[in-house]
């Protein structure tokens, strides 16, 4: 069963424009949601997690349990934001971890 859905494979925005990367999930119980990012020729790394409620590199994500969504947003995209973004979910036990298929974001100068 697909637990994490990222509907956009590719997303292009102009520098300075707002960006939103969509993520929907299906899980019974109380999952923990994450966004991971992979910059070109770098390792996958954590961007943010919903329980910390932080803004990292200007990105925020709000967990909407009613809509089962965890969309990633940034008001003004920068060229260095170009990367592959993965939404991920951890179950309550923490023993399993599920990634979406990823969205490749390109910020056009």
């Amino acid at each position, binding site marked *: 069963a697909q637990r*994490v859905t*990222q509907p956009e494979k590719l997303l292009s925005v102009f520098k300075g424009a707002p960006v939103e990367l969509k993520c929907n999930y299906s899980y019974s119980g109380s999952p*923990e949601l994450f966004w*991971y990012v992979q910059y070109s020729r770098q*390792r*996958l*790394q*954590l961007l943010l*997690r919903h329980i910390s409620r932080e803004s990292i590199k200007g990105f925020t994500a709000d967990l909407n349990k009613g809509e089962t969504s965890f969309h990633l947003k940034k008001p003004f995209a920068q060229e260095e934001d170009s990367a592959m973004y*993965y939404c991920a979910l*951890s179950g309550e036990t*923490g*023993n*399993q*971890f*599920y*990634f*979406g*298929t*990823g969205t490749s974001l390109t910020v056009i100068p």
Partner: protein
Amino acid sequence: GAGVSQSPRYKVAKRGQDVALRCDPISGHVSLFWYQQALGQGPEFLTYFQNEAQLDKSGLPSDRFFAERPEGSVSTLKIQRTQQEDSAVYLCASILLAEGEQFFGPGTRLTVL
């Protein structure tokens, strides 16, 4: 200190060969995940260790896949009788405790001919 390392970085195997992929987690990290990432896909969960205990192996695609972490540090993912569909990048990630940020290795790209 050093991050998570994986070896080899690239592996080419003939169909039917056995392969062993190694993961060296960050020293002291309790938890370790293995993932399989096919081209154009996100990482797919394979298995999870807490120290030397394999707490979840529900993601292993077949009984040809076997993972171990005998001393609670280095882990090995073994694939027996490799098939073409096993071609993927295999990622390892470690976590300091049971929950927290996963630190990923660079991956091993396996190509089965």
